[in-house]
Each structure stands twice: as structure tokens, then as C-alpha cells.
């Protein structure tokens, strides 16, 4: 169903390739050209694009953890915070180069993730959700009060990202940095899902007992999932810190963790396309609301005064509920259906 009719497999390598037909390659090329040329035609949207890119990296990690391995985590913003602060502290206080700090941020977030992931071995579902919420609160509390290192409530300033002599200070340069790292992250996630580890994750998600009986080491694979998921979060946190140039714990609220879950639900769990669609969808709603609600407020003066601040969570909540009830497989599934129908058109019978 995924491929146009008449696509045949002559070798194993061909069978496994992600891009199969000439059309695929052309479309990929067009996509890359559009993405890399974006500053030229949509310059005003770069800040949104940067936010979307960082969120895609974080949510891709959550998707590996929750969508592929089935371990629900509602503390992802906490792990992002670990990455952001690690990277900020390393570059500010120890003068570490940016690239090294990004890797260290990922590793430290991953290690903290493993720590809070250990209960996943004995509990699942709701218990795990609660322990990850607890993780979020404990992490933020430590950051808020460990003033000597993290600057406490007032947060800390961060250097702009730099690789060698290039300093990513302008929005355009930040856009390219985030774009390249996002593409690498998506590529990594796509390939991970097709390896032995990825298949083990899916087995654990579908039934962890059955997976264990088949010889999958649950302890190992659940912790690997936590590590990889939080590694992505750490990278996203580091990018966030080095592009916004200052961080405080306000950047990592629990509501964001919940929103990330909403994004993978809306996009479609356990697919690579899903998180991307989900993030774009939610961020665009976010944009629309912040653009439109002041205008609405001034045209309809009898709207309640809290309209502007309350409408966004209201819509997000509604979107999450509606998607779970009516389209639990998310936008990615809709996209599949659409592809199938245009391939068969006009003879769909």
C-alpha cells in the first residue's frame, strides 16, 4: 500500500531502502530545496520555524520512548531542562565548545532519564506516568534551588551557539543550525525504528511479557529507550538554551510535557511522520491563537477578559480529546489514507 503499483524488489537492499522510486527522490530534493531556501521567502516565520525544529527533536525522542517502546513519559520537559542547563553550565562556566556541550547535554539528560526510567521495569502505564511527573517536579525543584550552579529562579545567560569561528547569532544562521540537527535527528529516528533495537521496542510496546518470553532483555531495552528518548530531549534543550540566549525554569513547565504527549497523539504514535505533523499542527494553532485572539478581543469587547490566555490551552485540550476519540492513529494515518486513495484514483474499487 505504501508504494505505487509496479514497484518491484530485485535485491534485499532495494527492499529495505526508504526512498524507492524516482518520484520519491525528486520529492525529497524539492523538500530539501524548500527547507533550505525558506529564509528567502518566509523570513518572517523563522522564529516559528526554529521553535518547531527544536520541538520536533524533543518530540521525536518522546515518540521513540512512548510511541515505539510504549513507556509513557509525562516529564519530558524536565529532561529537556536537564539538557539545557547542562549545556549552559558547561559553556558558561567551563568554556566548553558548543558541539561538545550539545553531546554532553544529550548524555546527561539520557542518564537522568535512565535513573527515572528504572521503575519502568516493575511498573507500567499509569504508575510510570506518575513517576515521570514526579521526575519533572524533582528536576525543576533542584534546578530552581541549586543556585550556585544554575542561577536559581532568575535563570542564567547562555552564549550563542558557535562552531569554530562561526557564531550562530542571527535568526537565519540559527535556522540552518536547527534544520541540520533536526534532519539528522529524524534520519536517526527513522533508521532506529528499523533496526533490531527498534523492533525490540515495538515488541515491548505491544506486549512486554511476550517480548520477554521471546528473549528480549526488558531491562536493557526499556533503559535504552529511556536513554535515547531523553538524549533527544537533551539535544533539544541545549539548542533551546543556545538560541534563546537565556534560560530559566519557566521554559520547562509541566504543561509542555503534556503538550508533547498531545503532539505525538495528534500526529500519530509510533510513526516518524507523526511527531513532525503533530508539532507543526500544534505550533501553528499556537501561532494562530496568539495572532488572532487580540484582534478578536478588540472586535468583540464583551468576550471575557481571560480569553486571550485561556483559549490556547482550551483548544489544545479539545484537540487532544477529539483526536483520541475520533482518530487515535493521528494525522499520519490520515496521510496514509490520502496517499492510498490518490494512488487508486479514479478506480478505487
Amino acid at each position, binding site marked *: 500500500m505504501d508504494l505505487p503499483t509496479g514497484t518491484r524488489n530485485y535485491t534485499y537492499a532495494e527492499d529495505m531502502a526508504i526512498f524507492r522510486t524516482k518520484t520519491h527522490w525528486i520529492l525529497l530534493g524539492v523538500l530539501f530545496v524548500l527547507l533550505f531556501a525558506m529564509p528567502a521567502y518566509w523570513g518572517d516565520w523563522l522564529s516559528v520555524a526554529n521553535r518547531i525544529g527544536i520541538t520536533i527533536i524533543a518530540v521525536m525522542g518522546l515518540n521513540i520512548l*512512548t510511541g515505539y517502546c*510504549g513507556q*509513557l513519559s*509525562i516529564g519530558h520537559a524536565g529532561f529537556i531542562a536537564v539538557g539545557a542547563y547542562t549545556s549552559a553550565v558547561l559553556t558558561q562556566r567551563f568554556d566548553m565548545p558548543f558541539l561538545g556541550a550539545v553531546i554532553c547535554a544529550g548524555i546527561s539528560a539520557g542518564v537522568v532519564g535512565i535513573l*527515572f526510567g*528504572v*521503575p519502568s521495569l*516493575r*511498573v507500567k*502505564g*499509569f*504508575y510510570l*506516568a*506518575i*513517576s515521570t*511527573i*514526579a*521526575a519533572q*517536579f*524533582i528536576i525543576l*525543584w533542584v534546578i*530552581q*534551588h*541549586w543556585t550556585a550552579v544554575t542561577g536559581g529562579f532568575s535563570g542564567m545567560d547562555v552564549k550563542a551557539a558557535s562552531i569554530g569561528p562561526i557564531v550562530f547569532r542571527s535568526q537565519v544562521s540559527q535556522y540552518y543550525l536547527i534544520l541540520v540537527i533536526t534532519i539528522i535527528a529524524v534520519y536517526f529516528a527513522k533508521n532506529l525504528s528499523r533496526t533490531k533495537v527498534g523492533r525490540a521496542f515495538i515488541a515491548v510496546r505491544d*506486549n512486554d*511479557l*511476550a517480548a520477554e*518470553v521471546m528473549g528480549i532483555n526488558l531491562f536493557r531495552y526499556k533503559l535504552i529507550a529511556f536513554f535515547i528518548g531523553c538524549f533527544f530531549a537533551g539535544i533539544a534543550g541545549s539548542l533551546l538554551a543556545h538560541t534563546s540566549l537565556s534560560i530559566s525554569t519557566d521554559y520547562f513547565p*509541566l*504543561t509542555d510535557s*503534556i*503538550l508533547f*504527549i*498531545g503532539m505525538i*497523539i495528534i500526529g500519530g*504514535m509510533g510513526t516518524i511522520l507523526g511527531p513532525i505533523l503533530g508539532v507543526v499542527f500544534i505550533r501553528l494553532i499556537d501561532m494562530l491563537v496568539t495572532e488572532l485572539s487580540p484582534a478578536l478581543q478588540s472586535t468583540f469587547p464583551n468576550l*471575557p*477578559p*481571560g*480569553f486571550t*490566555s*485561556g*483559549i*490556547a*490551552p*482550551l*483548544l*489544545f*485540550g*479539545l*484537540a*487532544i*480529546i477529539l483526536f*483520541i*476519540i475520533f482518530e*487515535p492513529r493521528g494525522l499520519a494515518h490520515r496521510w496514509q489514507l490520502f496517499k492510498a486513495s490518490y494512488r487508486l484514483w479514479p478506480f478505487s474499487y
Partner: protein
Amino acid sequence: MAELLQFTVTGLALGMVYALIALGFVVVWKSSGVANLALGQLVLISAWFTYGMLTQANLPVWIGIPLVVAFALFLGWVIERVILRPLIAQPILSLITVTLGLGYFIQGLVGIIWPLSLAPLPKLFPQTPVHIGTAVVSQEYLWAAVISLILFGLLSLYFRYNRMGIAMRAAADDQEAVQACGIPVTKIFSRSWMFACVLAAVGGILISSIGNITVGLTQTGLQVFSVMILGGLDSLPGAIIAGPIIGLSETIGAGYLTPLTWPGIREVIPFIIIIIVMFIRPYGLFGEERIERI
């Protein structure tokens, strides 16, 4: 010493209220297997609704509070009918995340209707502080404890003697068998959600009459999860015993640990307890360890 006594009394009373809110969760979890993560938001919206009735509409307490209870019953019914009914027999992941979405939705709703960050409830209880031994405790704590105890009593009587209560316990034990007996399971689900909302509403009123109505109430709802985790998710007595333990460790811990560590530890203690329980005894003090089969 007076300090310790004071911490103990306030901790116990606070814990009772926690246990009350936790019971609402346990009832839903036992009967329908839905993990209600919107608990904090339910507490929040009913506290604000009470504010709307008593302060904004200026109704007397004896009309206002029944109206709040009626609102909570209605809210529970709507939530079950509109959101959870279509999701019966869906995977647990959907059931958890849909309540997260619900919480988000309620928070937005509260933000639109009551765009205040803080408001006091009118004083429902007498204000003169009470002397217990050497400790001085404000009366609200004692009232909160008494009201919680009365509600525990009523609930356990309901589950013991009322037909519907017995049916709810049966549904918790084996849903299919109950259905085979001709008991409408959906009605039980709906009833359990109504209970959850009423208990959250009473808890919200009690907590916000001690403190104020703030956004922090949602976090209170999350702290209540530590009660369920410690007591065991599927155990009513577990929630009642674990509530005061959590309340005590919160007040005593905050009283004696704050000088040793950082301020704000009070809000984090329940979460630290959650992590500790997860490592040592994940099914809680009284919870039943489910043995799974493939």
C-alpha cells in the same frame, strides 16, 4: 514540642483532605480502569465554581454549596458520557492521555472564566484558633478533617449496603461477570465519575478555605497521586491510611527539612515519596499486585 504537635494536627487534617480527593480517583480506577490525571483540574474548577457561587453571585452558603455539588455531579456525568464512553476498551495509553487533554481543556476554561491568579473563598468555618495541648491550630483544619471523616463513613456505608454500591464493587472485581448478571456497567462508570467529581469538589472547597484558590490547586491534585501510589491504586482503605501519612510527612518534613535543604521542599516531598515507593514497593501498601498472563 508544640511545633511538632502543630505539624501533626495540620498534617493529619490536610492528609484527610488528600485522602478524600484520592478516593475519587480510586473509585474511577477500580470500576472502569481509567486513570484520571485531570484530578487537579477538577479540584481547581470546582473551587472556582464555589468562588463564583459564593462571592460573585453572593449566594448564601446553604444554597451555594449544594449548587456546587450539583455542578460536580453534572460535570462527572458529562465527562463520562462525552469523553470516556466512546473510549471503553481502548488501550490504557489513550485512557491516560485523554484525561490529560481534559485537564488542559478545563484549565483553559478556568482561565477564560476566572482570569485571576488568586482569590480567597468566603470564610465557611469559624475563625477562632483552637488550642490543642500546647499547639495552636486554626479551626479550618479540624473542620476539614471532620468533614472528610464523615464522607469516608458515608462512602463505606454506600459501598457496603446500597445496591448500586455493591454493583460498583462487583464491577471492580470482574466487569464481564457483572455485565452477564445484567447490571448496566456504563451506569456504574457514570456513577463513579460523579463520585470522583463530588469528592474533588469537596476537597477543593476544604483546601481553598484553608489557603486560597490558586493555580497551585492543580499541583495539589498531582500531590494527591502520591496518596494513591503509597496506598495502592485499587485500595480504598489504602487511600484513607496513606492520606494522613502523606499529609504528615509534608508538614513535618517541611518543618524540619527546610533548614537542612532548600525552601519549597514541601511541594516536592510527595513526589520524592512517589519515586521511593516505585523503587521499593510499586504496588503500594495495600495494592494488589496483578499477575499478568500472555
